[in-house]
């Protein structure tokens, strides 16, 4: 805590340990490593005057120390909601209506607001899409860093300033001594996001929630920021929940990936497995609909229809009206996460007892893609 390993060669720690994938895939993780974040049966409701909308329904996952869990889904799938529920930034009238959230073994979803506030920043760092929402335009970034550090760590002004410098150096701000007194608007978009990362890391939190951290950035800068995020978190052993809609970002950053659909977690597993051999028909369709650089197809695979609105989620499996394999059971009975491939999928195709039959897809499906 006293000195940051800023002298470490960038890249030296970048490759993720190979054993992590294997360990992370088993669910729940073996007793030896307690997960940093443990979410069980999380349910978030939005009462409206017509009906109570269920924005998150029975979402469970773990994130191990040093692990990057990617949370993907299309707009309205509940991926940002999951992050916001963990840090309790749900917009009213939304509220957690069931389940539990544990941070390093300690239950945090039932804490009173004043007990929860100190967790933000100290134990959970946050990085949002627009760096300008996380930075106060009226204060220099040095002041903001020093204030954050001193709020959470027992340091005097001088020590905190030293640490702020070290952090800025670590996130790759050139000549940090001269930039410490600059204001957010004097930085470019990429540099601002680096400052936000420094700010999120300031108190050495165990968990970082990054919500679309690179969506507002150009591709060339995106790569820089993701590499940085991955490196600094690996160095500190911080767990990362990376929320994004971009499978490419997930593919190169995450260790495991959780796919969400209509407020439910429908598949979770090691990232390469989910991308190459998706087990849930929705993930399958999603992967196949992404245009790739490697090959050129006349037509992209398209999943017909659109994700249901929260007010009209179908009974049974939420994906059943769009699913090529849907059977009677899918329309009535909601599947739990079942072991599938190297991960888990919430789909009756994978029921060990009585699996629903896979229908041959009429169109070019995943076979054609890879």
């Amino acid at each position, binding site marked *: 805590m006293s000195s940051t390993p800023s002298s470490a060669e960038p890249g030296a720690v970048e490759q993720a340990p190979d054993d992590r994938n294997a360990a992370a895939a088993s669910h729940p993780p073996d007793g030896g490593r307690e997960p940093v974040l443990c979410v069980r049966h999380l349910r978030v409701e939005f009462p409206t005057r017509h009906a109570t909308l269920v924005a998150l329904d029975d979402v469970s996952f773990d994130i191990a120390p040093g692990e990057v869990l990617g949370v993907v889904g299309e707009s309205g799938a509940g991926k940002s909601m999951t992050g916001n529920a963990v840090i309790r930034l749900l917009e009213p009238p939304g509220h957690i209506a069931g389940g539990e959230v544990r941070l390093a073994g300690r239950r945090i979803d039932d804490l009173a607001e004043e007990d929860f506030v100190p967790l933000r920043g100290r134990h959970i760092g946050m990085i949002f899409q627009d760096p300008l929402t996380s930075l106060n335009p009226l204060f220099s970034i040095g002041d903001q860093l020093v204030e954050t550090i001193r709020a959470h760590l027992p340091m005097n002004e001088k020590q905190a300033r030293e640490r702020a410098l070290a952090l800025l150096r670590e996130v790759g701000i050139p000549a940090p001594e001269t930039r410490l007194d600059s204001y957010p608007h004097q930085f470019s978009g990429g540099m601002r996001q680096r400052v936000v990362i420094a700010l999120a890391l300031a108190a050495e939190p165990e968990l970082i929630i990054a919500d679309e951290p690179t969506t507002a950035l*150009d591709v060339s800068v995106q790569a820089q920021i993701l590499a940085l995020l991955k490196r600094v978190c690996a160095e500190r052993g911080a767990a990362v929940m990376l929320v994004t809609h971009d*499978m*490419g970002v997930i593919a*190169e950053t995450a260790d495991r990936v959780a796919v969400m659909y209509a407020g439910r977690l429908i598949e979770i597993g090691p990232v390469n497995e989910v991308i190459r051999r998706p087990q849930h028909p929705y993930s399958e369709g999603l992967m196949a*609909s992404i245009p*790739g650089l490697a090959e050129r197809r006349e037509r992209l695979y398209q*999943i017909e229809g659109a994700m249901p609105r929260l007010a009209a989620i179908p009974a049974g499996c939420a994906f059943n009206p769009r699913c090529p394999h849907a059977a009677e059971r899918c329309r009535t009975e909601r599947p739990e996460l079942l072991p599938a491939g190297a991960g888990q999928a919430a789909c009756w195709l994978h029921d060990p007892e009585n699996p629903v039959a896979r229908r041959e897809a009429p169109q070019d499906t995943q076979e054609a893609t890879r």
Partner: protein
Amino acid sequence: MSPTQPVQAGSNRSEVLLEASDLARHFDVSKPWLNRVLERTDKLTLKAVDGVSFTIRRGETLALVGESGCGKSTVARLIVGLYGLTRGRLVFDGQEISDLARRSGRRSAAIRQRFQMIFQDPYASLNPLWRVGTIIGEPLRFFRPEMSSVDRRRRVGELLEQVGMSAADANRYPHEFSGGQRQRISIARALANEPEFMVCDEPTSALDVSVQAQILNLMKDLQQEYGLTYLFISHDMAVVKHMADRIAVMYLGRIAEIAPSDQLFATPHHPYSRMLLAAVPSLEGEGRERTVIQGEVPNPVHPPSGCAFHPRCHHANERCKAEVPALIARSDGSEVACHAVEEGRLD
């Protein structure tokens, strides 16, 4: 090139549909006069587009790619006459349209009804107070005032079905539809007058991937059916690869490289094209680290001297800092604006 092109009476069926030469658009981004005097600052000019030339052949898709601030959307707006040209010349199917921005109403109707534009934001591109039928019928009311309202309604229904919606949707309001459906409505409006040429400004970047696939497929189907010519603007290399026949890579208001799509993806020449391709996250790569590129796009108000890319380029020398490179055609069909490539320091 264009198998089912409905022959337009009297149109000159040349191979080249649109020719843009030396397009430039500068914006005055200075502070108000009083601030300038008090702060002793000069006028500031943003050269959003500065000397862009290309041709689009009938029936093909030319893509413009680049990062934010490279001027690709400005080029789109110059072509359809939303902005006036600061310099340069635009010829559409043999007709000069350089002054289109100053011509509105009936005087330009003959030329304007031959092209259309599709916008990025499906939530802002439809008038929220109008019914979908009125929105799609708007070009018809303007270009074909002689059309009866019954015929117009029938045509609107046809258009809606063509883009995969139902004719009954004409009676609904835009807010009742999802982003993907709104983009279909935009496309239906653009198709209303059977245009030959469509300028598509990031038509899918506000959409989810599965919806993007639907829209891209729809656009390809429409292109085949009507022999449409597309100018397709995007920042997403994978989408561009899927859609385009030829690709122009833009950087800070200029074209760095134009090449046939397969050519560009196989052997990019310009260092910036290489960088862009290397930066694309890949699903296939086995945990492949993207090549991390240093630096960011500079502020376009104060572009670097000479070749604007030189501060980020490993191959830059003194000449690159001083002299703006011109687009030079190569034997493989690509055109590249790079001193290093021209001199053979880089191939």
